[in-house]
């Protein structure tokens, strides 16, 4: 018994230390950094200021933020549109098929996402696979400009983030009691009405969870826009990255990072509040 307790205390301690070292301290550092002043030679000076946050409202950054949000929203909708039918059919599939199908979703994770992004670049390039095929088929006369466009960024984000939409959707769809659909059919609802009145409302927590898991990273994945987007299609993550690496303005980069974190946290909190009620009903059943 005491042996067990000791083991438990030890593991809790280890986890706490880990969290403090790798989560709490870095975040605190960023937080503090965000209210310090930039210094050319030392990166920062111990001089408190809110200026970094004020600068965020500069139209230039606001525009980047809005454009990034727009691409993230489109990405989320695309993912939802693609993932829902897939997750739905996997959830309906016989049990032994389900794991295999989910495995197929997860396998691409085994390849580094950077490499997969370069693969997309190879496909979309002016002399890339897609253009070559379309030219050969005679469907187009001159190569399409696909790379370094908004579309390319959205495509890349969608491709990389799709699994994060599929998995939470599958998790809720799989849990819906098939009896509910039978009951709805029994009461006169055809397949279309059953889908909209039973399946969709009951899968809403998964839709929200999946949307957050796509939307938030889509704001931050700077290497996608670096590789596929060119100079005009930046995401919020690009700003943060460039402040740290190129402009050497750590305090401002920190302020941007903190703001993004806060926005994400607020969205997660809203989701938590909504889903808690929904989940309670599902659990109490």
């Amino acid at each position, binding site marked *: 018994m005491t042996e067990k307790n000791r083991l438990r205390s030890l593991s809790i301690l280890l986890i706490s230390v880990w969290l403090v070292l790798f989560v709490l301290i870095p975040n605190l550092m960023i937080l503090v950094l965000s209210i310090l002043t930039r210094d050319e030679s030392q990166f920062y000076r111990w001089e408190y200021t809110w200026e970094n946050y004020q600068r965020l409202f500069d139209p230039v950054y606001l525009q980047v933020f809005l454009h990034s949000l727009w691409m993230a929203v489109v990405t989320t909708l695309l993912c939802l549109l693609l993932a829902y039918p897939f997750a739905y059919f996997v959830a309906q599939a016989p049990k032994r098929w389900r794991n295999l199908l989910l495995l197929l979703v997860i396998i691409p994770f085994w390849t580094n996402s950077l490499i997969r992004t370069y693969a997309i670049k190879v496909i979309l390039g002016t002399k890339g696979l897609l253009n070559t095929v379309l030219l050969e088929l005679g469907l187009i006369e001159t190569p399409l400009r696909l790379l370094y466009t908004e579309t390319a960024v959205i495509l890349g984000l969608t491709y990389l983030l799709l699994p994060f939409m599929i998995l939470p959707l599958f998790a809720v769809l799989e849990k819906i009691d098939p009896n509910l659909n039978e009951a709805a*059919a029994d*009461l006169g609802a055809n397949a279309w*009405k059953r889908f909209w009145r039973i399946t969709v*409302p009951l899968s809403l927590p998964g839709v929200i969870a999946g949307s957050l898991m796509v939307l938030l990273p889509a704001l931050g994945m700077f290497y996608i826009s670096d590789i596929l987007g060119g100079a005009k299609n930046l995401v919020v993550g690009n700003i943060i990255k460039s402040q740290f690496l190129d402009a050497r303005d750590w305090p401002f980069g920190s302020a941007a990072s903190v703001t993004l974190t806060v926005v994400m946290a607020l969205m997660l909190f809203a989701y938590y509040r909504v889903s808690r009620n929904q989940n*309670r009903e599902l659990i109490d059943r």
Partner: protein
Amino acid sequence: MTKPAEILLQLRDIQKSFGSRTVLDHVSLDIYNGEFLTLLGPSGCGKTTILRLIAGFEYPDGGEILLNGRPLSHAPPEQRPINTVFQNYALFPHMSVFDNVAFGLKMKRLGKDEIRRRVMEVLTMVRLQDYATRRPTQLSGGQQQRVALARAAVNEPALLLLDESLSALDFKLRKQMQMELKALQRRLGITFVFVTHDQEEALSMSDRVVVMREGHIEQIGTPRQIYEQPRTLYVANFVGDSNILEGRILRRLDERYVEAEVEGLVCPLLVKQPLTDGSPIKVLLRPEDLRVYELHEPHQLEFWFDGQVIERNYKGMTLESVIRLPNGKQIIASEFFDENDPDFDYTPGEKVRVGWVRNWERVMTDD
């Protein structure tokens, strides 16, 4: 209860298998308009499967289902004027009680006012009018069950299917729901097909009982017929307590009676079946058919065993005694307490006479 003659639903020679497993084996059954029919049988005998075939969740491999004489063939559930009360209720968790009950009417695209009126009417009937805005999860098991019932009944279906709808409830609530269900059925005049594996429930609620066994129908009859004239030993054993005595026909006395030897006792038995002398028989006697007398008591028995009481159980209204016959066989007798005899009781070990009133026995052959 007079039997309504009009046939509402007909199962004709239904076969159904899942994989290599035959679940229903040539089942035929007529369901009359307005009756309360119960499917009774042990777990896995195919009761739910019959309901699912009627509701349209499954389709038969062979045979036909006719509603008002017309084949339902492959009509999907949403096109059948039949509603189900599911065993686990299957209430929609994201809807209020009102919306749950209104679901079927909305699917029929009735007007808002009519939907409101009918839903509230049914909710009042199941005494849940004050719970209309609650979510199903905020209700007790019994209340959820009533919502499930209301959700099905509000559509005024031709046929209402109830799958073990009471089995999840505790004893008291269950008794109460049994009465409410009966009352509701009488008021609505809807045909009910009720599934249970509780024989007492089946006997007390139904106009007719269908006793099932491993995918086929063993007997169909009124509760009284099933109890008093079970066609087979299986039915006799499944419905109510029974004593099955082993015997052998000695000779025929006349058209109605034979002389037989039963557990060592030679007695006349009512046997109409043409059985040859020497055939083995089983004699069914319900515990309440038996009469027990202390040795000094006067009695009207024509024949009896000299038995010994080995156990007695107080059952509230009745006294149940386990009695050992001379050949060692044990039987159970159940007697009402006699108000004129306050000392009515036996002591274990006491010698008694035990017999039955002539003609109350039921003689069966092995099946």
